[in-house]
């Protein structure tokens, strides 16, 4: 096994530990933020495991798990946990309805796409994130050396496309940017905003660092995924592991009780007698 095949299994183990830790906190405190984080982390872990599996062998249901939970939904559910800490109650409920409805719709679209998968194109030689989508080539564009192409009709025109597992124009692919924009905005934006608030008030240094780590961890996986789609897939598994570790440390730091570093003593007369 190569290092790139081992790393996703380590990420999965970290995410599993992280998920159990967060869901235990939900059981004790009943704070919905922990529930949404726990669900998002479970999705992240499932996606990471599916990716590890797909680096060794093909299974279409592993691809289903990888795309739906790993590529589409997990960031949005993680970010929704942060929204629960920062937004007003009325907004939280409205957005929760949209998130659940949108996730169910994405599930429906993914199930619709399953019989149309181009399984013959799959290889364990490169990450699944480099081969999941069929890409239409612009006129005059050069075909990548190891790519398999197909001539197909897309939006009424005949185009040459680099073959991928999901056919060109698969509707489920349109849902992914919505979830990822929402997840990025709430998870990273929320962590940056929280860190800024504590920093500006000059209190709780551990929460400042914790939120910086959570934001940096989420950005690590976001950036690694974007680089993969641009053809630099070698950073993906490392990015995933760094992301899992940073977010876990950040979460543990944020949840840790504050040390009594500053003690202000005020002498108060107990009574007049």
């Amino acid at each position, binding site marked *: 096994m190569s290092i790139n095949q081992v790393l996703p299994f380590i990420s999965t183990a970290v995410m599993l530990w992280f998920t159990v830790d967060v869901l235990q906190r939900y059981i004790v405190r009943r704070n919905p933020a922990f529930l949404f984080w726990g669900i998002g982390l479970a999705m992240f872990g499932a996606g990471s495991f599916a990716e590890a599996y797909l680096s060794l062998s093909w299974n279409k249901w592993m691809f289903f798990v990888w795309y739906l939970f790993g590529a589409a939904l997990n960031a949005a559910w993680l970010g929704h946990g942060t929204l629960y800490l920062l937004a007003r109650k009325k907004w939280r409920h409205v957005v929760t309805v949209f998130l659940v409805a949108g996730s169910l719709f994405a599930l429906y679209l993914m199930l619709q796409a399953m019989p149309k998968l181009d399984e013959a194109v799959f290889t364990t030689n490169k990450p699944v994130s480099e081969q999941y*989508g069929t890409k*239409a080539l612009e006129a005059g564009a050069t075909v990548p050396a190891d790519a398999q192409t197909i001539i197909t009709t897309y939006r009424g025109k005949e185009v040459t496309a680099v073959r991928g597992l999901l056919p060109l124009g698969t509707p489920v692919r349109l849902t992914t940017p919505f979830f990822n*924009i929402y997840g990025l*905005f709430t998870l990273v934006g929320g962590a940056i905003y929280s860190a800024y608030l504590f*920093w500006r008030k000059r*209190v709780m240094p551990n929460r400042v660092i914790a939120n910086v780590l959570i*934001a940096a961890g989420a950005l690590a996986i976001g950036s690694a995924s974007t680089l993969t789609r641009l053809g630099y897939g070698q950073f993906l598994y490392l990015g995933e592991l760094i992301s899992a570790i940073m977010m876990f440390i950040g979460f543990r730091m944020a949840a840790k009780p504050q040390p009594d570093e*500053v003690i202000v003593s005020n*002498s*108060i007369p107990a009574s007049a007698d």
Partner: protein
Amino acid sequence: MAVQTKTNRKSHIPEKSLLFEKIVPIALIVMGVITLALMIFAAGVLLGIIHF
């Protein structure tokens, strides 16, 4: 005269700390810029301006 002690349990950011005076604010700004860039990128994909 009896004396009561009131404890403020909030920890404070240390004064003149390189981490909190320089590194944290720069990290927050850089991460904010990267987040914005990634969101614009994702929106570009959604709108069909960026193809991949």
